[in-house]
């Protein structure tokens, strides 16, 4: 038993372990995106998904192309863009809240009709 554990833990972390973590994060984000109504919760879910994607970029870069930096920069830029996106989104949410006193996604249909 102990041997087995040591055997398992010896060597580097397997790539699929990283991917599994990011996968769970990603689909947790998907679940949140689909099931929650609050715009803020949706935004939180989106952040989760973005992070999961970042992890994948990094992991692939590190494991598959160790000498290159494409994945790295992609993750970097994604973080920057995520920051922008969050800032703008939150500004919009606050504005909506001011006008409609609600941040529920299903109720925001005044522009539609």
């Amino acid at each position, binding site marked *: 038993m102990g041997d087995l554990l040591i055997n398992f833990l010896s060597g580097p972390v397997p790539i699929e372990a990283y991917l599994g973590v990011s996968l769970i994060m990603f689909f947790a984000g*998907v679940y949140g*995106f*689909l099931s929650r109504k609050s715009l803020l919760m*949706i935004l939180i879910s989106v952040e989760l998904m973005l992070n999961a994607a970042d992890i994948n970029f990094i992991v692939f870069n590190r494991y598959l192309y160790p000498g290159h930096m494409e994945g790295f920069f992609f993750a970097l830029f994604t973080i920057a863009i995520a920051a922008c996106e969050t800032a703008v989104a939150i500004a919009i949410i606050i504005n909506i809240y001011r006008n409609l006193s609600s941040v529920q*996604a*299903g109720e925001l*249909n005044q522009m*539609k009709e």
Partner: protein
Amino acid sequence: MQYTLLIILLPLLSFIVLGLMDSKLKPKVAGAIGVSVLGIITLLSYISAFEYFYLHKIEGVYEKLVPLHIEWIRFNEFLHIDLGILLDPISIMMLVVITTVSLMVNIYSLEYMKGEKGFQRYYAFLSLFTFSMLGLVVATNIFQMYIFWELVGVSSYLLIGFYYTKPSAVAASKKAFIVTRFADLGFLIGILFLSFYTKTFDFNILNSGDASIFASTAGVSFMGISVMSWTMGLIFIGGAGKSAMFPLHIWLPDAMEGPTPVSALIHAATMVVAGVFLVARLFPVYHTYAPDVLHVIAYIGAFTSLFAAVIACVQTDIKRVLAFSTISQIGFMMVGLGVSGIGGHEGHEGLGYMASMFHLFTHAMFKALLFLGAGSVIHAVHSNEMNHMGGLRKYMPITNITFLIACLAIAGIFPFSGFFSKDEILAATFQFSPYLGATMSFIAGLTAFYMFRLYFNIFWGKEHKHEHTPHESPFTMAFPLVFLAAVTVVAGFLPFGKLVTADRSEYIIHLDPIVATVSIIIAVLSITLAALMYMKEKETPKQLATTFSGIFKMASNRFYIDEVYIFITKKIIFNLVSTPIAWFDRNVIDATINNIGVVTQWTSHKTKRFQSGQVQQYAYVFLVGTLIIAAIMLFV
């Protein structure tokens, strides 16, 4: 004989003038136009008759003249409708009959229709009728005949419905038109068949006796009956419709809703004999190629004649009695044609044809006289019902005498014209078949009986209380009566056999003394019977009516033929065909089309939800779609 064109065109002209001017003309002017035009064409037709019968006889045979002939429309290299004038003995005879009766009716109407609203219209329609009827009789080809046949039908429609505010008149006109139209369908299909096989419409070619034009019909048959029998039978249906043969007779009694002079002109003297004329016109074809149809015609004629005579015995409306009498007499003419042959001076084959035409001529005169006399009576007592009359002989002597003459003529009493023509038909029928001859003699007896029932009921019998005293008609009405009575008296002595025969050559009439004697005896007996029953008011008729109540009731209701028709038209055609079709159209076909629209709308309404603007929904769909596509790409 180019001037015969005028006989046709003048009435048309007068129709156009009267029709377009209508109420802008004064009634008197309209009447004058009508009468003078008719006077001119009557004169012209007399002249042409004289000229024809005196000058156009070559080697004992009358010529067939075609003084005018234009191509009106061309269908293909063989078939074309021509408009033209064909003069031969029967068309000349018809010209004389039509113009004479029409002139008399025109004169008569001056007084009879005085003060009616639409007097000008009435004269316009009379002119139209005269024009179409003349066009019919001079037709050079069968399609021209059909054209004028239809025009005659329409003028009859217009004249029956002259009192268009009266619902019964409107219904009667409609019925007359539709029933005859139905018969015309047969006529039309017959024409189509005939023209297909013979490649011609022309009477002269059809009647020329040239067997080659009928060559293509040889051996062609349908349901065991040769195609020529079908064709001629279908054509006869057209004639039967116009001539009110059973079972297409139902329109004629109703047609009495029209003004009485119209009944005299159209529904007694001229239009209703168009069927007889049609058969006579195509007689050589019938005789050579469809003798079986000719026999059918004879039997239909005999049955119709009997049927109508029985009904006539119990009707109380005087015009209806006359209408049924007309049907019965036309039956006589049909029998005459049906039993006839062509030529044959020895064996009397051609007697039937000649007799039939003769009867047509004499019948036109005395039946017009009867109707005009009845009109005169109606004018005086303002009723059509027999039991509102009685004892009128004191007040209306001229009408009385002329009516009596006509009754004697139709009963077949020597020396009035009816005697000669009817006797010849009887003689011809006896030659054909003694049984048929006996039947026809019996019908002749019935005729005498119901005519004198009518006569005695009107002029004798118990006097009815009148609101105002009946008076004799003025001159314009009396003159036609007298004129026609005179014709009726002398017409029997016309040498008809020399003029109008099946093969257009002279025919010597031998009166069969036995037949003549027998028929006179029967007629006298019937008259006596009628006199006994109706001259004085007696209980006998009523007793008889109660004794034979079943048959009496059936006869008074005209054997329920009308009800059958109403059942067929109203119940079957309207309720079982038209209404369901209309329903089907709205609720099945149209609904299908509409439902295509409804379904489309419903679908779009449903798919609209996909475009909800809900980001989560889009994301969901997007995700599912991606997964599906990825799965397909990986696993399939």
